């Protein structure tokens, strides 16, 4: 097909990985559309397990700005960081085509920085989601034949203050699976950087490994574009 064996196999791996992510996101679509949507005005939105939450009301915090409502700003910064690291990656690939070792090193370092920044942002985002807001949500549970009400802060795989339990579960599974891809991408990028510095690709005579790992890194960015739309915007 005009591409080397390694590149071809990376493409087909990414196709199968795309199916996996599609499976997660489509299941999210199924479960979300089977829940009741929030019926009232968005300005008066309150957390309740009776309906699916409005995402911009859940993700409205930014580090160091406690109590300030900034919907989707932090996740916007994360999107920016990941797109920029995709750009620096493609510049590393371009430098590799020219056998420019110094430029590959420079752009791989920027790409690594972008990946690590994104992961750090996600760590903060998860912590915030798990710890919860200042005021709890009253959630009803059916225990030993009677309804009881509990104050719930934050969310995990058992409780969720933001809405139906499925909302929290999908948040952890989808952003977690994507975050794990970013994490392994950072490891691969470091390997590429290390091999470039030690001159492995100069001795090999080509920088095709940068291209192959680059494909993987762009794919991670691609998945985030879909997660961003379907989990945070819609």
């Amino acid at each position, binding site marked *: 097909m005009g*591409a080397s064996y390694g590149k071809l196999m990376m493409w087909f791996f990414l196709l199968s990985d795309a199916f996996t992510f599609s499976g997660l996101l*489509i299941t999210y*679509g199924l479960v979300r559309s089977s829940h009741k949507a929030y019926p009232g005005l968005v300005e008066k939105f309150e957390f309740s397990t009776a309906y699916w939450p409005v995402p911009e009301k859940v993700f409205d915090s930014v580090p160091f700005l406690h109590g300030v409502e900034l919907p989707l700003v932090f996740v916007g910064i994360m999107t920016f960081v990941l797109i920029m690291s995709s750009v620096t990656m493609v510049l590393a690939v371009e430098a590799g085509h020219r*056998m420019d070792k110094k430029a590959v090193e420079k752009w791989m370092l920027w790409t690594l920085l972008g990946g690590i920044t994104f992961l750090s942002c996600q760590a903060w985002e998860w912590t915030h989601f798990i710890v919860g807001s200042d005021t709890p949500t009253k959630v009803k549970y059916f225990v030993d034949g009677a309804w009881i009400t509990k104050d719930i802060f934050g969310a995990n795989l058992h409780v969720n203050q933001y809405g139906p339990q499925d909302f929290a579960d999908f948040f952890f599974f989808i952003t977690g699976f994507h975050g794990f891809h970013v994490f392994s991408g950072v490891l691969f990028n470091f390997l590429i950087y290390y091999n470039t510095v030690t001159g492995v690709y100069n001795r090999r005579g080509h920088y095709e490994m940068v291209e192959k790992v680059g494909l993987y890194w762009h794919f991670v960015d691609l998945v985030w574009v879909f997660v961003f739309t379907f989990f945070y915007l819609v």
Partner: protein
Amino acid sequence: MAHHSHEPEVVVLPPDKAKIALLWKTAGILLVITIFEFIIAFTIPHEYHNLRVAIFVGMTIVKAGYIVLEFMHLRYEVKVLFWSILIPMVFVVWMLVAFVYEGIKMSDINFLSK
């Protein structure tokens, strides 16, 4: 310096200015689309849910197109490779439509039973 003799002589080519400019332009387009999405998110009210979703999905497909075609270089690959990646995605689109439709029907049933 005999121990350095195994390091090959590498010819470094000058930067491909046109290509680098195209990459930065692509990045610019991606950022502009993302900013546009934010403007939509805070200007079109939630009452127009379907319009919002249509715009967001459309913009996402445009962004995905730029990433796959330019950054992942698929536009410049052989046509056979191009189509063997894109055609299987038809099944994903079908699965998405089928399952979201199923979900809406499930919510109708739940609603009636209450």
